[in-house]
């Protein structure tokens, strides 16, 4: 027997051949010797070589320490079964009392040790049973140490096929990854730590027919170099079955995550807060790398319940070929903050807060949304600029590609008109009422189907027409026709925190345009305040949704009742009429930073012109007169007069760079100017001397005037 060349065994599994052959050879060789008084027999087999396996320096030793006792030992200096595993060295198999009852050969409790290539030095317990009549083999291996964990393997080769099962416990993922490199490699820049305890069962005949993997992955912490993919102490429960179908694999899997966190740029999921489960049924087509999802049910606590179906193309350029999402429930605020907001961080919607829930259908094609039909249920949306309370309705949308596709869009998903209604809300801090709108939207277009009215305070904005085409594109166009129904200025000023004054604001808005983040209003807004007329035109709002809104406008006021104005602002009574021209007004964050304003008595005004002591005093302060005026007014004979007559008054301020360049109705001399030209007796002229006044000081002065009761004149 020494030096015998062993002929290749034509079986699919080399280990079976080797184990069977070695065992049978060893056992057969000792059988005739039983009973002889021999203490030990050594058989040197030499090298065994198959087509793609080999075993060198094989020897068998038989020890017969006593009656009914046999110990068989097999030594292999070096063997190569699978090149990927590497060479097996110094393999030693010890089998006490081998069972030899042809055709049955068995060893119930063998010990195996040696250097097992990639799997390192191993010390195992094994049991083996081989039947030579039908060439079946059963074995179990215990004590295999792999990747810092334990593995228990059982296997059987029957005529009908083979089964290999491995129970693993506490495998270190980092080591397992190294071990698995010949068969399965993760991207190099991905670091993975954690433990796996998995049960793997493989069935097959010539090739693998089914694979079942179940168990847990614990404390998985993974990071890729770019930081776009990461997990932290993620715990996953797996139950997977793969079934071969020709070249394809049919997949059924259940995956649950109950703790840990995961981040896939830009989405962050905290499974301890919101545990998630996914159930998949699909087909994996290795060539060209397509995953067909016949059903993917996902559920995450307080977040989402949905069923997805579609096709993912891992081989091509476009991963998401098509996807149909049946949203049973998308729950805000969690779904919004964790699944939607991350995509909006660069937009003006970053501060949006959502409540309520949404259901419906979403379809995606070639990586892009193609259509959706969504139902809103009691949704509250609160943004920086606008908020909506109790939004209900249905929003249907389809992409421009789908809309323009031949065959008509009428019956398609997302083609039906949309309807939204809400119970109230706010716009720039002003409360708005219940509204209902009907509209159609597709691509970047939006069109209101019927006129609507948005109640604002006690009035409203009646919108007769509103359509937007190519929203956000350079060629965007907006068509708008509407009217501001009279709104009480008292309520408006209360909403803005201004001193309250009476009047209404109304006007026709023939045109609105939105270009490069500038919202412009065509037409004039008319207000009736203080018994006069106010016209606002060239109204523009820059960055309307952003952090730094900037408003510009021209305001013209005619024939305001000064008594009402001064009464409202506790300025001290002045009677008469007032015109005001405010050109190039610019507000930054709703505070004026620039304007050219002129307030003056209307030419030819016939009304009664009286100015009170307090008003004289306040106007003098603005003009730079200071405390001297108060002293002059409250002493001498002037103190007997409560009011003084005036001919006309006027004041102008050109604000720029926080400096107000002031002037009056006419120059007196040098830098001095008349603010009030008196008439009759006693005649009081108020002459301003301050030309350049700090705007902030002026504002604080005016605020102080409003807050104080004014000087007491006796």
């Amino acid at each position, binding site marked *: 027997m020494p030096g015998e060349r062993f002929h290749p065994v034509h079986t699919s599994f080399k280990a079976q051949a080797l184990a069977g052959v070695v065992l049978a050879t060893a056992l057969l060789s000792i059988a005739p010797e039983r009973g002889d008084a021999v203490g030990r027999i050594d058989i040197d087999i030499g090298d065994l070589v198959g087509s793609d396996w080999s075993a060198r320096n094989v020897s068998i030793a038989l020890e017969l320490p006593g009656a009914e006792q046999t110990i068989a030992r097999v030594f292999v200096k070096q063997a190569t079964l699978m090149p990927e595993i590497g060479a097996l060295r110094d393999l030693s198999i010890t089998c006490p009392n081998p069972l030899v009852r042809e055709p049955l050969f068995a060893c119930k409790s063998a010990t195996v040790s040696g250097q097992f290539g990639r799997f390192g030095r191993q010390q195992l317990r094994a049991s083996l049973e081989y039947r030579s009549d039908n060439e079946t083999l059963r074995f179990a291996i215990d004590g295999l140490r792999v990747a810092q964990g334990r593995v228990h393997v059982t296997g059987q080769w029957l005529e009908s096929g083979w089964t290999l099962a491995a129970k693993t416990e506490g495998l270190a993922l980092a080591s397992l990854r190294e071990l698995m490199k010949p068969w399965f490699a993760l991207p190099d820049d991905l670091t993975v730590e954690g433990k796996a305890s998995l049960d793997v069962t493989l069935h097959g005949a010539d090739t693998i027919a089914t694979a079942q993997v179940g168990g847990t992955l614990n404390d998985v912490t993974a*990071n890729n*170099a*770019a*930081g*776009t993919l*990461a*997990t*932290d102490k993620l715990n996953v429960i797996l139950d997977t079955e793969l079934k071969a179908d020709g070249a394809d694999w049919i997949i059924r899997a259940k995956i649950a995550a109950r703790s840990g*966190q*995961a*981040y896939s*740029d*830009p989405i*962050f999921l*905290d499974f301890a807060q919101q545990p998630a489960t996914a159930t998949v049924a699909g087909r994996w087509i290795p060539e060209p790398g397509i995953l067909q999802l016949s059903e993917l049910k996902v559920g995450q606590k307080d977040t989402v319940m949905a069923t997805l179906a579609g096709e993912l193309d891992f081989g091509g350029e476009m991963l998401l070929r098509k996807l149909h999402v049946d949203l049973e429930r998308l729950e805000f605020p969690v779904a919004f903050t964790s699944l939607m*907001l*991350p995509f909006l*961080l*660069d937009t003006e919607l*970053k501060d949006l807060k959502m409540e309520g829930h949404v259901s419906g259908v979403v379809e995606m094609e070639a990586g892009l949304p193609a259509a959706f039909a969504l139902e809103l249920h009691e949704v509250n949306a609160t943004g920086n600029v606008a908020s909506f309370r109790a939004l209900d309705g249905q929003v249907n949308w389809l992409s421009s590609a789908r809309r323009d596709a031949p065959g008509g869009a009428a019956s398609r998903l997302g083609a039906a008109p949309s309807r939204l209604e809400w119970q109230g809300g706010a716009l720039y801090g002003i409360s708005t009422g219940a509204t209902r709108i009907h509209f159609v939207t597709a691509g970047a277009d939006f069109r209101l189907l019927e006129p609507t009215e948005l109640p604002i305070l006690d009035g409203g904005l009646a919108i007769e027409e509103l359509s937007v085409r190519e929203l956000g594109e350079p060629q965007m166009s907006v068509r708008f026709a509407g009217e501001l129904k009279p709104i009480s200025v008292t309520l408006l000023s209360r909403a803005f925190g201004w001193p309250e004054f009476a009047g209404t604001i109304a006007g026709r808005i023939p045109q609105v345009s939105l270009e490069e983040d500038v919202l412009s209003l065509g037409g004039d807004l008319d207000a009736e305040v203080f018994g006069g007329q106010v016209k606002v035109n060239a109204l523009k709002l820059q960055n309307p949704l*952003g*952090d*730094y809104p900037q408003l510009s406008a021209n305001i013209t006021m005619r024939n305001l009742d000064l008594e009402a104005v001064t009464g409202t602002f506790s300025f001290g009574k002045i009677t008469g009429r007032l015109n005001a021209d405010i050109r190039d007004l610019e507000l*930054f*964050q709703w*505070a004026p*930073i620039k304007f050219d304003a002129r307030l003056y008595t209307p030419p030819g005004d016939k009304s009664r012109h009286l100015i009170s002591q307090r008003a004289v005093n306040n106007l003098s302060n603005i003009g730079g007169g200071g405390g001297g005026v108060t002293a002059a007014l409250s002493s001498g004979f002037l103190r007997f007069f409560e009011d003084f007559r005036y001919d006309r008054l006027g004041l102008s301020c050109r604000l720029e*760079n*926080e400096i107000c360049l002031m002037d009056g109705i006419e120059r007196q001399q040098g830098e001095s100017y008349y603010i009030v030209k008196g008439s009759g007796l006693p005649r009081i002229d108020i002459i301003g001397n301050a030309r350049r006044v700090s705007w902030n000081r002026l504002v604080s002065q005016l605020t102080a005037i409003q807050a104080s009761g004014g000087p007491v004149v006796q």
Partner: protein
Amino acid sequence: MRRLVPIKLALVSVLIAACVTINVYFPAAAAEKAADKIIEDVWGKDQAPAPTPPSDKTSSLAPQAGRLLFAAAGAVLDFVIPAAHAQADLDIATPEVRAITASMEGRHASLSKYYASGAVGFTADGMVEVRDQNAIPLPERNQARQLVADENKDRAALYAAIAKANAHPEWEPEIRDTFAKRWVAKAQAGWWYKDAGGWKQK
């Protein structure tokens, strides 16, 4: 009539000679000063002192043909007109600049830890960028992205607002450029910045 021609020519020559075009150049030194003032406001004054690199103020702008001539003209003008204009500060005391600076100052407390950890660094165009996501704990990653997006919006608004406040909206690129250098110059040791050669640690 004929005799008048030479006189006319002479007059025209005098007029042409008298046509002086005065170009206003970007005041690099003043911009640097303004940038430093704003950076101090945003980051607080406890920043490590960063000496201004000894550089020729005008040379920081790309040299262009003809610039020397204008520089010479400028020098003559400086001599004739006391250098009040040349030394003028850049106006940064406008409500816009103040509001944006205040907003950035409020954000700095949240951002500075990311500068220190190397998660966020400064780019050559005066912005900030997420450099290393892995330096940010998972739950904070979106918050950090939000901070970076907001900061960049403010920075863009700031550069434009300064240019506008000084009635030269076209200076925005130079102001941005000046800021880009000063953010880095005043950054603490250990913070990261990106130049043509990639990310570097200060």
